[in-house]
C-alpha cells in the first residue's frame, strides 16, 4: 500500500480525460463512473450493469462481491473492452485509469494502455492460454509486443516471472505446454503473465474459484505479497474478500448496493442485502447448531427490473417507497455508503 496521500481525481469528477495525471508509485488509480452496460437478448434488453461507480486508489485492493448475474464480471470486462459487442452495449460511463478514460479510447490506444499498465487474471486458466505454444513464451508475448525486448531477454524474463510466482523448476516449466501444467500451476502462470508487463493495476475475475483450498491459500499468499500494485478482485467468496481486500463493493442486480472498508462492511453492514449475505454464509467459526439465516426469493429479472429498489422483493425491511423509487448510494460514514431508503435513514 502506498502511504502517500492520494488524490485520485475521483470525487472531483472534473478531470475527465485529463492526460496530465501523474502516475504514482504504488499502483494506478482506477475510477469507474456511472457505467451502464446492456445486453440484447431474445426477451429484450437486459441491464447487466446499471449506473455503477466505484474507485480503486493507488495501491488499494478492492473486491467486487456479488452473486452470479450481479454484473461484477461484466463490469470488469467492460472496462477492459473485452465485452462482445453485440450483444453487449456500453450505454454510458467512464473508466479512468490514472485519469485516462479507457472507454472513450480507440481499440488500439486501449490495447497500448492495458498492455502496459493493466494485468488480467481469469477463472479458467486453461482457456486463457493457447494450447499450441509453450507457457514461457505466452507469459512474455505481451511484453515482447509492447516493449520490444529480444527473444532471449523474453525467455529469461519468463523464467524469472515463473519463479517469482512460486513455480518450481521454472526453466523446465517455461518450455512446457499449458496442458502439461496442473490447475494451480496454470493459475500461477497466468498471474505471471499478468505481471509480466509490470502492471500497476491487476484485474482478477474469480481467479481462485476453480482451485482447491490449499492451492487457493498459496495463490492468495502470493498476491498479498505483490507490491506497488492496485488490485480489483472479483469474487463471490466472502472469505477471500475478508482475507484480501482493503475495500469492498457489493453488487446486486447490476447495481452497487453498498461499498466501504472491508472491516466496516463485515462489522456494520448497512444494506439489507449485505446483511443477509453475511448471515447466510456458513462460517467455520459459527455456532454450528443454529440454522443459517437464509434470504428468501431470487434476484430480479434483468430484462424486467422493478422501478424501485432491485432488492425490494426479498427485503425484510422494505417500505412502500422502496417499490417506487430507486435508492441512490448515501454515505453512512465518511468511507461507507449504501443504497437503501430504510437503513441509511434517507427516507425520512
Amino acid at each position, binding site marked *: 500500500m502506498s502511504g502517500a496521500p492520494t488524490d485520485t481525481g475521483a470525487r472531483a469528477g472534473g478531470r475527465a480525460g485529463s492526460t496530465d495525471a501523474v502516475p504514482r508509485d504504488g499502483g494506478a488509480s482506477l475510477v469507474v463512473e456511472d457505467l451502464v452496460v446492456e445486453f440484447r437478448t431474445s426477451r429484450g434488453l437486459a441491464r447487466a450493469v446499471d449506473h455503477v461507480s466505484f474507485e480503486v486508489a493507488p495501491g488499494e485492493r478492492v473486491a467486487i462481491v456479488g*452473486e*452470479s448475474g450481479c454484473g461484477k464480471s461484466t463490469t470488469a470486462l467492460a472496462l477492459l473492452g473485452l465485452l462482445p459487442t453485440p450483444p453487449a452495449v456500453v450505454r454510458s460511463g467512464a473508466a479512468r485509469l490514472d485519469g485516462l478514460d479507457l472507454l472513450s479510447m480507440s481499440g488500439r490506444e486501449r490495447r497500448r494502455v492495458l498492455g502496459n499498465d493493466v494485468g488480467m487474471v481469469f477463472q479458467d486458466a486453461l482457456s486463457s492460454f493457447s494450447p499450441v505454444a509453450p507457457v514461457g513464451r505466452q507469459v512474455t508475448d505481451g511484453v515482447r509486443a509492447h516493449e520490444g525486448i529480444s527473444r532471449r531477454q523474453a525467455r529469461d524474463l519468463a523464467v524469472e516471472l515463473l519463479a517469482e510466482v512460486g513455480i*518450481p523448476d521454472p526453466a523446465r516449466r517455461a518450455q512446457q505446454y499449458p496442458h502439461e501444467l*496442473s*490447475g*494451480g*500451476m496454470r493459475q500461477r502462470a497466468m498471474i505471471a503473465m499478468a505481471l509480466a508487463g509490470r502492471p500497476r493495476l491487476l484485474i482478477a475475475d474469480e481467479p481462485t474459484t476453480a482451485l*482447491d*483450498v*490449499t*492451492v*487457493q*491459500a*498459496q495463490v*492468495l*499468499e502470493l498476491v498479498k505479497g505483490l507490491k506497488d500494485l492496485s488490485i480489483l478482485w472479483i469474487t*463471490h*467468496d*466472502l*472469505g*477471500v*474478500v*475478508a*482475507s484480501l*481486500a482493503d475495500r469492498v463493493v457489493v453488487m446486486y442486480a447490476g447495481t452497487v448496493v453498498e461499498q466501504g472498508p*472491508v*472491516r466496516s462492511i*463485515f462489522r456494520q453492514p448497512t444494506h439489507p442485502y449485505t446483511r*443477509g*449475505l*453475511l448471515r*447466510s*454464509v*456458513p*462460517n*467455520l*467459526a*459459527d455456532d*454450528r447448531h443454529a*440454522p*443459517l*439465516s*437464509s*434470504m*428468501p426469493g*431470487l*434476484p430480479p429479472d434483468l430484462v424486467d427490473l422493478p422501478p424501485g429498489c432491485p432488492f425490494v422483493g*426479498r427485503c425484510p425491511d422494505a417500505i412502500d417507497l422502496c417499490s417506487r423509487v430507486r435508492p441512490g448510494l448515501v454515505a453512512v460514514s465518511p468511507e461507507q455508503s449504501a443504497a437503501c431508503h430504510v437503513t441509511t435513514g434517507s427516507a425520512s
Partner: protein
Amino acid sequence: MSATTTPVEPAGIDTPVLAVDELRVHFPVGRSLGVRRGLVKAVDGVSFAVHRGETLGVVGESGCGKSTVGMAVQGLVPVTSGRITVAGRDVSRARGRSRQAARRQTQMIFQDPTSSLNARMTVGELLEEPLVVHQLVRPAQRRARVLELLDQVHLPREAADRYPHEFSGGQRQRVSIARALAVDPELIVCDEPIASLDLSVRAQILNLLKELQRETQLALLFISHDLAAVSHVSDRVLVMYLGKAMELTTRERVYDEPVHPYTRALLSAVPVPDPDVERSRQRIILRGEVPSPLEPPSGCVFRTRCPVALPVCAEEIPAWTEVAAVGHHDVACHRSEELVTDLSGQLADDLAPR
C-alpha cells in the same frame, strides 16, 4: 477392520443405515497400443458408517475420491473390493432385483440439478417416475404423493405442471431433493449439492436438508469441498486425501481439535469471512499440489506435502487407528499419538502456522 471376517449383521436398531468397509474402487486408465498405462486408486481402503438421522460429511480436495465413494454407495461405479452394506444388506455386488431394492434405500442428489433432471419431463412427471419404477404408490394416488413431495420441499403445487427450465437453480435442486425423497429412502448421498448454487440460495438448501432430516430421520452422506458448509450440516466428518481416509471423528473434534496434519492444513487454508480473523491469522501453507493419483507417493500419500513427515512415512502405509486418548476419533498418521499428546517441542513448531 477386515473385509472378510465381519459377518453381515441382521438389521436391528443399532445397525448403521450405511456401513462401508475397506472400500476400494480402482479404475484402469489410458490404454494405449493395447498396453494398460496405469491404475487410478480412486478409493483405496476406506471404512465408515452412517447411522439413522445422522449426517456424515466427506471432505477433501479434487481427486481425493469423495465423489467416487458416493457413486459406489449408489451402485454407479463397480466396487473393486470391500463391502457396502445398506441397512444390514450387502449391496456392493448386488445385481438385478436386489440392486434395484438397494437403489430404493439410497438415493443421490448431484451438483448440477440442470443436467440431472430430464428437461422434457414436467416436475410432476419427474417426481412420479420413481414411484412408477419402484411400484410404490397406486396409480390413482400418485398425484397426491407428488403434491405432498412438493410441499415437503416448499415448492408451490403448481410446480408439478411446469418444466425444470422454468425454475431457478435452487428450485431445481429442491426438485432433485423431492425426487430423491419420493421413494422413502434410508439414506441420501448429496454430492456437492450446493456448489452450483448462488450464495443466497445455498443456505436455503442446507436448511431444507436439515429440516427433512429432522422430520424423517434420514441419514445423509454429505460430500463437499466446502468445509464451512460441511461443518454446518454434519454430525461427523471424514477427511479424505488421494483415495485414502485421513481422519474421521465428530464435527466438533475435526474443527476444534484436528489431529491429522492434512486436516489441520485444510482447515487453516479456508478463508473465514471475517477480516479481523483473517488479518490476525497465521496459516499452514502446504507446498505443492495433490500428486497425480496415477503415481501416488509410497507409504503415507500425504507425506510429500506434510510438514512433519518422517522417513517411516515414505516406507509404511499408516494404519487406520483410533486415537486412544479420546476415542471415536480415527486417524491414519504415523505420528498421531505424538500429535495428540505431545504438542510442544519440535513437532508443534513444525506444524505451527506461519
